[in-house]
């Protein structure tokens, strides 16, 4: 498969702040030795360089659909980036300290585009809720554990019906959660109902260009999330 490697290299070395960087030992293959490489995490791309001064990465690990786990290994502070699939590769990496290892595991488990999108969807919904309801209290969020193993995107659900523009408060998924959470303290809120259009065009989102764009981003994304949330295994 062709890939725009030149642009990828520029993305790897551009001036913007990185999401994490440092030396890690990378296992070459199943029986290979570890090589010390300079790793740079940016977005959902984990680049690795010969050393910190290199202008071009040796390689990149694309971090979609992976899980990050601690592993038993001869190396101290080892962890693995594991992909699903029968002949998928598992990358075994080792940090140089406990703190570095923990930092990397946290950063890598939250690196996927899918994860970021989930958080953005959540915030978008919360913003609409606090603006619409006019109440300062935040609705109960869907818990997102830092080591959440994100599955590959599930199949699309059929298109969802539109909400009417004026929503009575109890129809709003967030309001339903809050009620249930107070009735049964300590229990996890149920997954939200499939996502619907949050508001009419001249509603609370009209002064938010991002919000309007996300609105247009499509029902598909909301359906995806609804489907994923209802199918995922509760921890």
């Amino acid at each position, binding site marked *: *498969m*062709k*890939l*725009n490697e*030149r*642009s*990828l*290299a*520029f*993305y790897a070395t551009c001036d*913007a*702040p990185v*999401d994490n960087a440092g030396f890690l030992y990378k296992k070459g293959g199943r029986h290979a030795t570890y090589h010390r490489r300079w790793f740079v995490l940016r*977005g*959902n791309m984990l680049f690795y360089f010969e050393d910190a001064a290199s202008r*071009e990465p*040796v*390689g*990149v*690990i*694309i971090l*979609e*659909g*992976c899980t990050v786990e601690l592993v038993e290994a001869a190396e101290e502070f080892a962890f693995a980036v594991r*992909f699903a*699939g029968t002949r*998928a*590769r598992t990358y075994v990496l080792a940090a140089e300290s406990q703190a570095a290892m923990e930092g990397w595991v*946290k*950063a890598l488990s*939250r690196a*996927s*585009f*899918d994860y*970021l*999108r989930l958080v*953005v969807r*959540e*915030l*978008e919904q*919360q*913003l609409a809720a*606090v603006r619409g309801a006019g109440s*300062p209290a*935040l609705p109960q*969020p869907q818990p997102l554990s*830092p080591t959440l193993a994100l599955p*590959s*995107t*599930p199949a*699309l659900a059929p298109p969802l019906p539109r909400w009417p523009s004026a929503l009575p408060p109890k129809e709003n998924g967030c309001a339903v959660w809050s009620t249930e959470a107070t009735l049964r303290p300590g229990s996890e809120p149920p997954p939200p109902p499939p996502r619907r259009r949050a508001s009419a065009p001249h509603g609370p989102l009209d002064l*938010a260009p*991002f919000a309007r*764009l*996300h609105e*247009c*981003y*499509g029902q*598909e994304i909301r359906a*995806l999330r609804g489907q994923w949330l209802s199918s995922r295994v509760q921890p």
Partner: protein
Amino acid sequence: MRYNEKELQALSRQPAEMAAELGMRGPKKGSVLKRRLVKLVVNFLFYFRTDEAEPVGALLLERCRVTREEPGTFSISFVEDPERKYHFECSSEEQCQEWMEALRRASYEFMRRSLIFYRNEIRKVTGKDPLEQFGISEEARFQLSGLQA
């Protein structure tokens, strides 16, 4: 540059944000327009021969520029080399507009800016940081300082 091609191929098989058959022309001089199935999945644009299951190629959509060309046509280029353009021909103005908007929003960096925007807006209304509930309020990737100039 080495990359995990198998995982990229698996990604190309995921449900797409957008998919359509478009005319595509590569950036090299003298490139010919070809029919390709073009598929947007997270921040990658995959393109397939119309009868094949494996993509011919993929474009990572970071630091890219989406530009209107002739009517019904847009191009993707990258910040470091704006003259090197991938051209896409749509079947209508609406389709062209739809794709341009989707591609401009497709990058991880755009999504990150959205998050920071929503976070600040919620903070303004409620006085609370919505990321605290997820335990990610200190994550470097979600700080304002992480935004590109």
